[in-house]
């Protein structure tokens, strides 16, 4: 009996080894932010599945929702030599700087595969003059408003500071969180918009070097954050909650407003497309541009040098990169929403006299971590805005 069992196990082992040996194609590793609540996730996965079927290759995808830990994870994989072959990651930002010698420029790929003619988007040009990533969607950020709540309390949309103040006071009185945000988790939207509301867009994009004067609006902006907190614009647990919870408050109509990006619009249920609108965050200073928003193109698909240098993988990886960035894929993975929400978004972007790149994308990771960590203290007044922003600049936010 034991001999028979041993024989069967040996045969099974041999067969499985044979199966491996006979398997066609290669296995490619991918990583992206098409995961979690990103509505493009099913389309992204479908594109990968189509690629597997068409090419006979396997794709192992390790996508996850984008946050600081995800960014760090991608960099850690590079450090350990365990990077993906194709990845969707930040480009032309401080986050992409450490990986440039480990990814392949699109120009280099086009030289070797001229028939593909991959898009070289100049918006994603790195400091060395090369473009390493192919974008599939651009983004904008703005103030999402539950219009039905404003209608319920007979309030005007928060298109200027006075209207915002009135809305905050009214919602607070009625037990609705005026602005949904987690300062301990994802504070960057509100930090960016507070700066933008407190001075000209050019100051938001100033990029002061260490030792240079801190733009006035950077300090005033942090004071706007404190003022909002004093007005009761945030939930009691603003310094100890998560973005998942605060976003749910907005979706459940327990919060009236939320600063977020275009990806957030995609996550809103269709029945809310007509009672949700997006507007620019109101200006608090006369020299601030009330139409200015945050936006641009900051992510794209990369091919890593590791995959490029592997003769067994190169063709397969290039093929996958071309597939993911084809016109058809770009259309499928684009933002999908409609109704009043889409109309207001088009209006906001169309009327914007300035579209600023997020400061957080451009500054040093260590400095950014410090700035974000101070958001709760800036809001409750236990940190001084001038001291914090001076440290941000002097610690080398911009190199």
């Amino acid at each position, binding site marked *: 009996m034991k001999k028979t069992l041993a024989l069967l196990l040996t045969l099974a082992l041999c067969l499985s080894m044979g199966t491996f040996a006979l398997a066609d194609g290669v296995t490619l590793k991918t990583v992206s932010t098409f995961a979690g609540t990103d509505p493009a996730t099913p389309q992204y996965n479908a594109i990968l599945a189509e690629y597997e079927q068409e090419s006979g290759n396997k794709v192992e995808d390790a996508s996850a929702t984008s946050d*600081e*830990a995800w960014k*760090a*994870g991608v*960099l*850690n994989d*590079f*450090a350990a030599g365990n990077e993906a072959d194709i990845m969707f990651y930040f480009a032309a930002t401080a986050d992409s700087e*450490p*990986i440039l010698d*480990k990814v392949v420029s699109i120009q280099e790929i086009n030289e070797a595969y001229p028939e593909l003619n991959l898009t070289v988007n100049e918006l994603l040009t790195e400091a060395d003059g090369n473009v390493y990533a192919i974008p599939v969607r651009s983004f904008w950020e703005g103030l999402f408003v539950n219009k039905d709540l404003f209608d319920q309390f007979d309030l005007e949309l928060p298109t200027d500071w006075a209207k915002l103040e009135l809305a905050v006071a009214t919602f607070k009185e009625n037990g609705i969180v005026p602005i949904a945000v987690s300062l*301990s*988790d994802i504070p960057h939207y509100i930090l960016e918009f507070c700066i933008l509301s407190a001075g000209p867009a050019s100051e938001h994009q100033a990029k002061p070097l260490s030792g240079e004067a801190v733009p006035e609006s950077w300090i005033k902006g942090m004071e706007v954050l404190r003022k909002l907190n004093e007005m009761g614009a945030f*939930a*009691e*647990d603003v*310094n*100890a*909650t*998560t973005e998942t*919870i605060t976003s749910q*408050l907005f979706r459940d109509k*327990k919060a009236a407003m939320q600063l977020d990006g275009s990806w957030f619009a995609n996550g809103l249920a269709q029945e809310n497309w007509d009672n949700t609108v997006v507007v620019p965050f109101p200006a608090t200073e006369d020299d601030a541009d009330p139409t200015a928003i945050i936006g641009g193109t900051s992510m794209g698909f990369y091919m890593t040098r590791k995959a490029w240098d592997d003769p067994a993988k190169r063709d397969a990886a290039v093929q996958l990169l071309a597939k993911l960035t084809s016109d058809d894929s770009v259309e499928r993975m684009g933002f999908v929403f409609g109704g009043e929400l889409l109309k207001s978004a088009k209006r906001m972007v169309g009327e914007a006299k300035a579209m600023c790149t997020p400061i957080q994308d451009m500054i*040093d*990771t*260590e400095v950014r*971590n*410090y700035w974000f*960590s101070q958001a*709760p*203290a800036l809001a*409750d007044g*236990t940190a001084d805005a001038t001291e914090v922003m001076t440290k941000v600049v002097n610690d080398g936010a911009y190199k």
Partner: protein
Amino acid sequence: MLYRDRRPLLVFLVPAFALMLVMLYYPFVLNIINSMFEIKGMAGEPQAFIGIQNYRDMFSDPTMAISIQNSLKMMGLTVIFQVGLALVLALMVDSIKKGQQFFRVVFFFPIVISATAIGLMFNLFYIRDGGMLNQILGLFGMDPVFWLDKSTAFTMVAIPVLWQYVGFYFVIVLTGLSSIPEDVYESAAIDGATGFKKTFYITLPLIRDVLITCATLSITGAIKVFDLPAVIVNNGKPNGLTYFLGTYMHNQTFVAGNIDYGSAIAVVIVLLGVIISQTVNRLLLRVGGEDA
């Protein structure tokens, strides 16, 4: 001599030592070296030599002070509540005739649940809007409480940390108790020792070594605490007040990309762990009496 020829022992010892060398001592030495060079990001190479600058910076870093303070507080709490509660529970369970096995399983159960799952569970307890605790308060007509407020957040994260490991020390102490020969108690009973006297003069001295081991394990465990705080109070929320040495090291290394400073914190964790556990171990041995 049981092992006249000791050479075969080397066959077993050398691979284990080599593994320790590669997986523990080499990274530790490298970590000390890294803490003295400027290193940006996980993919970064060591740049300028900065000596002990990172260790100096710790003295002016308020978050580091909070982390050390919280870790020390957690150490004290683990000894009192983890080992203390485990001892009380073990003494009670040891004294019952029926159901010992049931209580062993019940108290040990939290250990087998993943810390992440426990963390998520407690997160759901603490949510201000609709969390379990506030739902219960709501049933009694009470207002919701902000459980992770500045003044209560440390306690709220300490509760699950302490609760999870009580069962671990409970099992160790119970095993120690079961190893005490029954005839010792019989002799004591003849001499008139019962109840508290029996516990204080016979049981506790006989499991002193077990308790010292538990205290040492809980102290070293407390200084390394990471998983539950990382899930329940990520980013040291609120206001960075709930950072522990482990979570602050993780933040600096993996989020801020401040590799050299993260390495320096790791060195401090090891040094503190060794110094404190050794001190406590010797102190307890002295207090208990060398010949006890």
